[in-house]
């Protein structure tokens, strides 16, 4: 069987790979690229352990063909931390003990990030609906919901602090400059 040559972007980096036409993105990520964060729980779209985003849309990597991501932009759980620093969601999952075996965790993190990107302060109900496509056999979900809430409020505080700075008075901005200098 002839392989399909694919050029794409994964977590911001250009990546090229050759895969079989029927090979799913999850297998490409895990077996060809070495990104083993996304997990296979079911392989049929039911558990969300394989959650990634493609061009900003949350999807199950087990139900996307590798060949489909030509020219697209894929993000996985490995793209969440930046410069060695964990994303607030990742820190809050640890602080709130929102994981036990951890198989579901990468999927929950990617799905929760997608939720917060479109809705910065979701209600508990909105969080539960948004994460309904992610199954966890261990935690009972409650700690996961709390961790997402905690991350959302931390991100909101950060955002206010930042916008407070940006909309500061002229002299305020000057003094910031001075400090930097």
């Amino acid at each position, binding site marked *: *069987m*002839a392989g*399909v040559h694919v050029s794409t972007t994964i977590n911001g980096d250009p990546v090229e790979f050759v895969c079989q*036409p*029927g090979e*799913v993105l999850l297998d490409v990520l895990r077996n060809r690229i070495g990104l083993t964060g996304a997990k296979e729980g079911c*392989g*049929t*779209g*039911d558990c*969300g352990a394989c*959650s990634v985003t*493609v061009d900003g*849309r*949350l*999807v*199950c990597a*087990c*139900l*996307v*063909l590798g*060949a*489909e991501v*030509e020219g697209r932009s894929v993000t996985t759980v490995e793209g969440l931390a930046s410069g060695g620093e964990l994303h607030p969601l990742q820190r809050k999952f640890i602080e709130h003990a929102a994981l036990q075996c951890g198989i579901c965790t990468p999927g929950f993190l990617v*799905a929760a990030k*997608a*939720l917060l990107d479109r809705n910065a302060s979701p209600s508990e109900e909105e969080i539960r*609906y*948004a994460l*309904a*496509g*992610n199954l966890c056999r261990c935690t009972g979900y409650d700690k996961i919901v709390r961790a997402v809430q905690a991350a959302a409020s931390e991100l909101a505080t950060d955002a206010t602090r930042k916008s407070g700075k940006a909309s500061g008075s002229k002299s305020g901005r000057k003094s910031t400059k001075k400090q930097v200098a």
Partner: protein
Amino acid sequence: MKYEAPTSTKDAVALLAKNKGSAYVLAGGSDLLVRLKGGFIEPDLIVDIKRIGAMQEIKKTASGFRIGAAVPCVAMGESQALNKAWPGVVEAAKLIGSDQVQGRCTVTGNLCNASPAADSVPALVTARAKAVVVGPKGRRTVAVEKIPAGPGRTTLTKGELIEAITLPAPKPKTGDAYLRFTPRTEMDIAVCSAAVSVTLGKGGVVEEARVALGAVAPTVVLVPAAAKAIIGTKLDAAALDALAAACRAACSPIDDKRGTVEFRTDVAGVLAKRAAKVAYQRAGGK
């Protein structure tokens, strides 16, 4: 197996028509790739339609809306104009799967998968949606209820695909709604379902109506007798009972682990009543 991602409908049709073995259109893949991985199908060719420009957008047209066959359901939820015009169609499309599935699944795929329990189909039927079918012999437009032929089978012929689903602009004082019964609130397949659309005349009297049921027959069914039961009424108790009775009379469901014949038949009537009330309110009725 070959994977092709043509950039025009014409090229997609040509690929499907000239292929000797089994060929499948790939939209969101939330049915197709499950079947492929499960070994239920062994395609020689998969034609991915997501690179075809004309299939990627929701367009407002002179006569209503045109939803490209590759538009994921999540994008239907994001369209304010569509939400305003056909809230029942959007709520039905948004019920399909999880956020992950929403990012991929299409209403055209839901229609072509031809499951009697397909969530978006009853609402498309009551909204008078049409499928724009393109094939080697050209283009035809058919009512969506003519596409499913039975569980997993459609009336599309070799080389044909659906380019878009069209919806008319709703008449003034029109409302629609879709309800399903599932044991879980999310991520479940309808045990049975009902969609209703109504258009009101003077004094809140129902002037036009359409009623469709899901998961109670081999295909989604349009029930003209149920529509007749509420036309000319203001949805009083007697009219609603007549609507439910007509719906139950149209049911010929299967018995399975998700519901018995009796349960499905009874609940179909209940859901139709509730959906009619929501549609009536959305149409501005009190």
